């Protein structure tokens, strides 16, 4: 099968890889680049577990073709260690018991960080609406919503 050469930046580091046309970004990240913090839950773009940041915007890595990521800047859950919003979210997620099995958590955090930065005035209804693309089967969402609201409030 023909392969596509892709150059991209992942978590601040340049990567040059060759991918199959059918390979999705989540498999590239997890397999070739060993960044297993991005999780795969459905591989059809519904559950949100694979959410990463592509060029500054949250995106489903399971329905993003790796071959289309030439020149892209990708950030995964492993790439936020210096980010103060992510640090605050991690603290709040633990405080509010916003995770149980932890499988949806990386995708949830990437989405949550985007909400905090993009919608500083969001109320609970808006936060719930914005999080609706990320499924969690364990928590019933209360802790997650509260954690995001907590970080939003702290930044006001």
């Amino acid at each position, binding site marked *: 099968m023909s392969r596509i050469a892709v150059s991209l930046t992942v978590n601040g580091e340049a990567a040059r890889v060759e991918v*199959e046309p*059918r*390979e999705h970004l989540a498999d590239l990240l*997890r397999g070739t680049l060993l*960044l*297993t*913090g*991005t*999780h*795969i*839950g*459905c*591989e*059809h773009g*519904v*559950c949100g*577990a694979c959410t990463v940041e592509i060029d500054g915007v949250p995106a489903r890595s399971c329905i993003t073709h790796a071959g289309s990521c030439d020149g892209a800047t990708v950030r*995964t*859950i*492993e790439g936020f*260690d210096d980010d103060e919003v992510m640090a605050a979210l*991690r603290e709040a*997620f*633990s*405080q509010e*018991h916003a*995770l*149980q*099995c*932890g*499988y*949806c*958590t*990386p995708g949830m*955090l990437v989405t949550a960080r985007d909400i905090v930065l993009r919608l500083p005035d969001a109320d*609970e209804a808006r*936060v*719930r*609406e914005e*999080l*609706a*693309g*990320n*499924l*969690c*089967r*364990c*928590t*019933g*969402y*209360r*802790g*997650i*919503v509260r954690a995001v609201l907590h970080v939003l409030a702290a930044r006001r």
Partner: protein
Amino acid sequence: MTVEQRGFGVGASLRRKEDARFLHGRGRFVGDITRPGMLEVAFLRSPIAHARLLGVTKPQGAEKRVFTLADLPGIGTIRANSALPGFRVSEQPALAKDRLRHVGEAIAACVAGSRAAAEDLAAACVLDYEALPAVHDMLQAPLPDQPLIHDHWTMNAFLETRRNDDVSGLDAVAAAKVTRTLRTSRQCMAPLEGRGVLAEWDPRLEQMIVTTSTQMPHVTKTGLADCLGLDEGQVRIVSPDVGGGFGYKGILLPEEIVCASLAIRLGRPVRWLEDRFEHLSASANCREHHYVITAWADKAGKLLGVECEATVDAGAYSSYPFGACLEAAQVGSILPGPYVLPLLRCHTISACTNKPPILPYRGVARTGVCYAMETTLDALARKLDITAEAIRLANLVPPDAMPYRNLVGKVFDSGDYPEALRRAVAAFDLDAIRARQAAGEAVGFGLATFCEQGAHGTSVYHAWGIPFVPGFEQAQARLSPDGVLELRVGVHSHGQGMETTLAQVANEILGVHPDKVRVVHGDTALTPYSTGTWGSRAMVMAGGAVAEACRQLAGRVAAIGAALMQVSVAEVEVADGKVRRRDSDVFVTIADVARTWYRAPQNLPPGVDKGGLEITAGYRPDPDTGTHSYACHAAVARVDVRTGAVVLEDYVIVEDGGKLVNPMIVDGQVMGGLAQGIGTALYEEMPYDRDGQPLAATLADYLLPGTTDVPDVRLEHMETLSPWTTFGQKGIGESGAIGPPGAIVNAINDALARLGAEVFDLPASPSRVLAAIHAAKGGVR
């Protein structure tokens, strides 16, 4: 909820020790683990529900990378028998032999360097089969004219059970009688992580090491060793971080057997990761109950008797270890619920159909049974013109009757069931709801009360005769030379936070700071045998075992500590991580004691216990018939009578789980269960067509509740201690998922009452709600 912290022991809402790794993407799930030379497996699966399998033509040139059952001689079939009289035994082959019995049944394992390449192989196989009529309807399945799914059986049913109380006189004396025909949907458990297996053969140890996403590593070991013909010492099961389970990861998988067999045959590590399509269409089936239920009551609403005909669609095979009857065979024993019920007549059928085997899912039979009983009670109340609250208060077991043995022999340990109901009702302004109804608004109030038997043990399960019977739960507690306390348990956390809660138990006994406690779990080579994490048992059983091990360890520590202080053991106590003289501030730390045992044994007293600082202790409550947590769920639902859409305006849970080891985690369990229960009530449905084809193959078709579907619940706890457990704790892990369908549909039916409409089937989707309204207007239901 107030998350308040009271120290680090039992009762503290301690933040979870395991959070950090998940928050940084450092959890380790099966799919994150690779091995050099690892091969990936894709399964060729049945596209048809029922057929004679005639053959598989392998892709040319890839004959040695495609394995049918004939290529894996010697592997056994999965048998999960039951000692219940009349049980029909099924043999589930790891790969189909000559018959296909459900869509998704594995036929051949295709092996390649990547999953994609393995799927290419599966797609290139040519399957030859002769279609047979599919048995898709559980009510038809047991009838004599139906094709038999297992040829040697006499009917398509694993089991029938009967309880034959005479209810024939009740029509004459009852003030009210109602009959309802009710149905719950077939569901999929849908943890966000599917199953996954990585099997490798260690030629040095002659051991099969299987890393697999399971809730019960030891039971999987036993079942796998049996199917592979290995002794149990030759199988080691490692269960790493598990991305949710909810019962689905409490079974032995055909895929585990196949991967292990392949790893031995190929001498290479072999991995299979379930994808969502496989999960939904081939594997993760649960629930699907049908009831015809009749109840009689006197004019005060007091139940005189219940008659129930229950059918559960158990699918094609009896899965290991819980078997095909775990739902239906429990209906009769769960139906009395938290109520005083004088008479029960009940017939159940575990129907066999051409669908994937029914597997345990949070709440197991209780969710369906609670739905049937609670909606029937409301129907009775409407007929008697009394309130939903009144009919329940007329029947709930009163607190002064505790411990209470009900008519089927279940023993409720403790609690004030009516008080939970009263508190839940008091949380609402019912007059305001009635006023809105009077103004014509389709809003309603619904209740469900129930109790949940958890941590039931030997005395309950031996009667079932399934492949395992839980006995004494064991835990190991040992101090390492630096004073860190290691706890080794055979249960396995899949989100419950046991690395934290068991550390709290140890802290309660020894005072060791939770940071200095390491919980080792999820590896059969490192932990004592256990039936695992299921049945809301872990905090009662493993919590009790850890406490007992720590108590015994405290005795050993005290003896050495006292000697180091040159006093008698009677003069010291162990607390706060120290051995302290009772009469002064003089102490040595537990770390000092550990250092002495391991690194300065010259200072040990004569006659010191040679067992050292390592204890294995066993625990079982006495009696072991199980704890009974209980709850009242109360919902306010608003129905859009034009679209059939239902909005949950408010939801209250009053719950009693006995002593809460970590209230924050308990709240999380209840909330998570509630979300799943809302899914059961309003959204989740795996429909099958007449050919036995599953119709919801993606999460866009199989709807899981999202953030906007789960309200911000008001949650209140009562803490009535169980007299039978270490700290008075009760099993509570499944409770949240039991009550919602009953409470929510009762609220919907209350909202629709002025229209004369009533919903009977789950989920109460917009189309079903509209159909109910339409039927009430004289249309066809």
